[in-house]
């Protein structure tokens, strides 16, 4: 593990048991997260992004199992193997070291207790029992996320709007000063103005607290705006891992390329918009060879034989495609024309 990394995931695979057979939701995923870095996990629904996020804090449902791999986390000078932590250690690892803000912030709070109860029980569960201190900290965090602190802290969840609840959850995720913040579709359920506020907010909070961020999204605009690096997932694998500029301007994987072309740009014309033909593969009986070949315009015979691993392209990027060189050339030519 590099000294500037905070998290290192090696060869991680997660399988869900289903009636039809094992679902390989995450397959041999490896990546690392640097201190203070923002990593975006992008991909279509069902590509394994959320499963990967949940696996990082070992919050998978009972039907899921981590079948192989390692998750290493740096805590000061120590390196912790997350998968070998005891149940109680995992419990304390969650939120204190690695907090996760969920997609459905609307339902993230227990409807029968006040926001303050949520805050205090979170602090208490991690051994922080000084009520006044916790309250002061919470009020300060609410102020930072632009909420009326005194009104919000004594409110019941149903008394707050969706955007307010999302901000409360974000504020609460920073209560214990975690080193990593995982955000699962942090803006999906919100209207466009509220989305804007949340993005600005995350930026400012990062400056203040210096946490690392993994955000899971299918919103490419959000990724372009917040991420330092982008990991594209397809059928449970990371198929391209690259810095944000390359991801949008020089994607090597045909899937990343198509994904970017599905979204209108501010100055681009709409004729360039293209949907990706076909649909995401079945993860129980995935296609032979490269998982993307049935939908790929660049497919050749070799793609049917073997699934490519993530291979380094340059010092910043890695891609899992047999034909990335040709594609790279073709895209460059297309851009020049």
């Amino acid at each position: 593990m590099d000294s500037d990394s905070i998290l290192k995931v090696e060869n991680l695979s997660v399988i869900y048991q289903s009636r039809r057979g094992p679902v390989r939701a995450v397959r041999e995923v490896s990546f690392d997260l640097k201190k203070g870095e923002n990593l975006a996990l992008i991909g279509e629904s069902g590509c394994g992004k959320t499963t990967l996020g949940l696996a990082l804090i070992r919050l998978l449902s009972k039907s899921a199992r981590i079948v192989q791999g390692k998750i290493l986390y740096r805590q000061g000078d120590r390196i912790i193997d997350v998968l070998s932590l005891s149940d109680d250690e995992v419990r304390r690892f969650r939120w204190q070291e690695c907090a996760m803000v969920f997609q459905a912030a609307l339902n993230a709070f227990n409807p029968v207790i006040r926001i303050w109860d949520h805050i205090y029980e979170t602090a208490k569960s991690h051994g922080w029992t000084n009520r006044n201190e916790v309250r002061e900290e919470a009020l300060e965090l609410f102020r930072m996320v632009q909420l009326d602190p005194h009104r919000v802290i004594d409110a019941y969840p149903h008394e707050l709007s969706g955007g307010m609840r999302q901000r409360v959850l974000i504020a609460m995720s920073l209560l214990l000063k975690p080193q990593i913040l995982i955000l699962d579709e942090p803006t999906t359920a919100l209207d466009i103005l509220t989305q804007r506020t949340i993005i600005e907010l995350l930026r400012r909070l990062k400056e203040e607290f210096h946490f690392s961020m993994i955000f899971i999204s299918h919103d490419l605009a959000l990724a372009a705006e917040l991420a330092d690096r982008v990991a594209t997932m397809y059928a449970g694998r990371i198929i391209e891992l690259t810095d944000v500029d390359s991801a949008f301007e020089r994607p090597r994987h045909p899937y990343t390329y198509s994904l970017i072309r599905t979204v209108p740009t501010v100055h681009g014309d709409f004729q360039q918009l293209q949907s990706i033909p076909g649909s995401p593969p079945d993860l129980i009986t995935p296609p032979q060879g490269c998982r993307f070949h049935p939908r790929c315009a660049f497919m050749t015979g070799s793609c049917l034989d073997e699934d490519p691993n993530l291979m380094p392209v340059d010092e910043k990027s890695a891609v899992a495609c047999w034909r990335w060189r040709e594609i790279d050339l073709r895209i460059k030519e297309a851009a020049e024309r």
Partner: protein
Amino acid sequence: MASPARTLQPPFSFLLRLRKSYIVRRTLNAFFKVFLVTTLIFFLIRLMPASPVDVYINLLISQYGMPYEEARNMAAALFSLDLDAPLHLQYIDFLLNLLKGDLGISLVSRGTPVIQMIGRFLPWTLFSVGVAILLSFSVGMLLGMFMAYRRGSLLDTLLTTFASVMSSIPNYLVAILLLVFVGVQWQWVSIHAMRGSLSPGVVPGFNWTFISDALYHAALPIFTYFITTVGQWMLSMKSSTMSTLEEDYVTVARARGLPDRRIALMYVGRNASLPLFTQLALQIGFAAGAGLLIETFFVYQGVGKLLIDSINQRDYTVMQGCFLIITVMVIFANLFADLLYGRLDPRIRIVGGGS
């Protein structure tokens, strides 16, 4: 423009506020319902075939072999109540007395005020039904939650089967089975000694002798209520818990690193049990009626038995009293459940509800 409410003088605005108050509205509503049911009962029981006098005459003829004439004279002398008075006058009389808290005097057990009879019988019903409901509610909730947490396991399958079977058997059938097998065939308990509400010579008081004796006599009715209602609680709680476990706030609570015990108690248990409190009120209502047969079978001196006896003797005033009590119990249990629900679930708390 100011609303008329704001321009009113203080005493009137107070009245307006009172009218708006949820609790006051619900309570008035409850009283109205009691009045409606009581009126219905008053007229319905007088539509039953055979009056108390007829029943008494038949009794005298069949028991003492009296000639009809003699029995009729004796009965007429016994019943001071003028049952031939016009119905609406009787009704007005009844209502006026009711307002004074007077339920009248038993027609058959002459001279005994109905209120006194109810005072003697009601505590036993409240005691047995109350203990049973509390027991089956809490046991059912615990088992239901357990089943939801262990869904799919062998124990869950067994308990679910048990609960389905038990909640579909009527309680009087269980009572008969208990009497026939446990009491008579196998003689595990002495049903003779268990009759009544207390053993002779035991004085009510806050001591172990009294409590254990009361429980001993109430054991069979309590067991019958318990075994026939616990299944419903188990199944309701199981399904409620299973859907609560799927809620996002449970996942988020785990992500927040809360201990499992706290999540089970404050997140799953508390939310899953909410819908059950409404059911609880209905259960109390049904239990008051269910007591009719159960108390009669086990010869337990509760309101149910009193009611059955009074129906057999056409003791109009006692019947009215018993029905009134059962009605009040059902309606106010419902009211209580509503108010309780508001306290338990902040989303239901009504604006202006006050406390």
